[in-house]
């Protein structure tokens, strides 16, 4: 029988023994180090970007659709605002700008749903491989999704904005500070959107068929994110409620910052609160799934 080699080949390797088991200080230190492994998550984001960059045609088709629908939506909004000037506190230019900004968010924030392959992996049992990796699944997928969002912001975000600027004329923030705020809010919006989609995806574990949930999520997101109409259009208490829900953090909040109707600080605080809440919920759901998931297939 071959002799065991010493385990000094990999310094990252924890030794089995009384000081390395779960719950010991050593184990906690390893776990902590695992969580703060920034380079891993940076790399995942990069791969997410590159993975989606291999599907250029799909992204361009998406960009084209988003632009065309932007023009259609803007025409309707223009008619509406010409009939009711100053509606919801926006003038016509602001309404048109809002329209194209939110069209640009559809790709990066996946406002029409999807973007995660998780349900597919749960159904086929490939999730088993994700579960043996020594990294939290939610964080892993978040990093990858941020990379995806960055790619789609470029390829599916810019064209609608340019189309809007060319066809109707839209306003753009002048000072770089506001741009920075917009960028931060868009990133936070992607995180909230991810956290929501992740929860929706995990529901597959409890429901045999996920299509119903997906459709529900899509309706809620399109209606309540500000993607259809500005949420400022909803009157009274309903408006208050709608603007406080997590979907408002996806499109409405960053669009407000873009238009200058909200400060980046307050928008970010709102997004961070929902982001943290939904991610925490997702972490709990992941734990439940880990206990519950019946991994399919041989």
């Amino acid at each position, binding site marked *: 029988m*071959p002799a*065991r080699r010493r385990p000094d080949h*990999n*310094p990252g390797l924890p030794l089995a023994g009384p000081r390395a088991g*779960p719950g010991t200080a050593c184990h906690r230190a390893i776990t902590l180090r695992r969580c703060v*492994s920034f380079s891993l998550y940076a790399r995942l984001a990069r791969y997410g970007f590159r993975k989606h960059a291999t599907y250029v045609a799909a992204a361009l088709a998406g960009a084209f659709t988003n632009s065309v629908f932007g023009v259609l939506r803007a025409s309707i909004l223009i008619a509406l605002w010409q009939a009711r000037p100053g509606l919801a506190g926006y003038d016509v230019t602001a309404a048109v700008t809002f329209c194209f900004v939110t069209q640009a968010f559809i790709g990066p924030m996946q406002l029409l749903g999807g973007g995660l392959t998780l349900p597919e992996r749960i159904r086929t049992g490939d999730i088993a491989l994700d579960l043996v990796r020594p990294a939290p699944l939610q964080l892993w997928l978040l990093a990858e999704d941020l990379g995806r969002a960055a790619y789609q912001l470029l390829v599916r975000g810019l064209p609608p904005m340019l189309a809007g600027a060319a066809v109707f004329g839209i306003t753009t923030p002048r000072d770089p500070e506001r741009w920075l705020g917009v960028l931060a809010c868009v990133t936070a919006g992607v995180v909230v959107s991810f956290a929501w989609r992740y929860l929706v995806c995990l529901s597959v574990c409890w429901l045999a068929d996920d299509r119903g949930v997906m459709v529900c999520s899509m309706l809620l997101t399109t209606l309540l994110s500000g993607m259809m109409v500005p949420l400022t259009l909803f009157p009274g208490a309903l408006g208050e409620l709608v603007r406080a829900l997590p979907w408002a953090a996806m499109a409405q909040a960053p669009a407000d910052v873009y238009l200058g109707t909200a400060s980046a600080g307050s928008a970010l605080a709102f997004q961070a609160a929902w982001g943290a809440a939904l991610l925490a919920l997702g972490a709990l759901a992941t734990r439940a799934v880990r206990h519950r998931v*019946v*991994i399919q297939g041989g």
Partner: protein
Amino acid sequence: MIETERAGRSFKVRGAVVHAVRDLSFRIEPGEFVGCLGPNGAGKSTTIKMLCGILTPTSGRVRVAGLDPSRARTALARRIGVVFGQRTTLWWDLPLRDSFELVRLLYKVDRKLFAARLDELTEALDLGGFTRTPVRQLSLGQRMRGDLAAALLHDPEVLVLDEPTIGLDVVSKAGIRSFLLRVNAERGTTVLLTTHDLGDVERLCRRVLLIDHGRLAFDGSVGDLMATAPGTATIEEVVTRLYTRGRAAPPPVEPV
């Protein structure tokens, strides 16, 4: 290195309880090379999943490298390499070496050690020609070699493989087999594999576990296995005999 003690796993399927694995007890010492046989649905994959912490046993106890797989999953992941022949851990749309790079970051392998290890594996598995090819363009045999490399880059002490030779041609199989032998002999890595290919067992395994109906039906060397049947039986006949104990054996197929 691997130890199960009356380990069992049952599933609830529409109210009924399916016992996939029952009362499974065995012990694998460091450096062993063990093959796990059993008819379809015997509980081999379920056992493997319990060993790498994907499934929690519903009864009994499982220990790998001194750890409880389902509770110390992350600590264990650094010490165990897992390959599911029918699945892949590689990034479908990206070149093979990008997936390897991720393994390096995931297991925090030192850069120098990693480079040396990668060179070694590239040579041993003959990956040189396709590390820059997107994984979706690889053939099954190439992908399997890539998956093996990915599972071994962090130099685990235990390697667990679920049907690593499924769907491979004779040449690819031979390549994978000699690689596994090398890993076991040179690095002392403990290997446990499941397979339906008796050639794997004959050429690789010093010890065979046979699981049937979720229970351990045989545990011993290949010689012991052969000795369960009268003199001249081939390994196919021996295993058929064991699989069909208490059942009517399928009629033999005459060669044309």
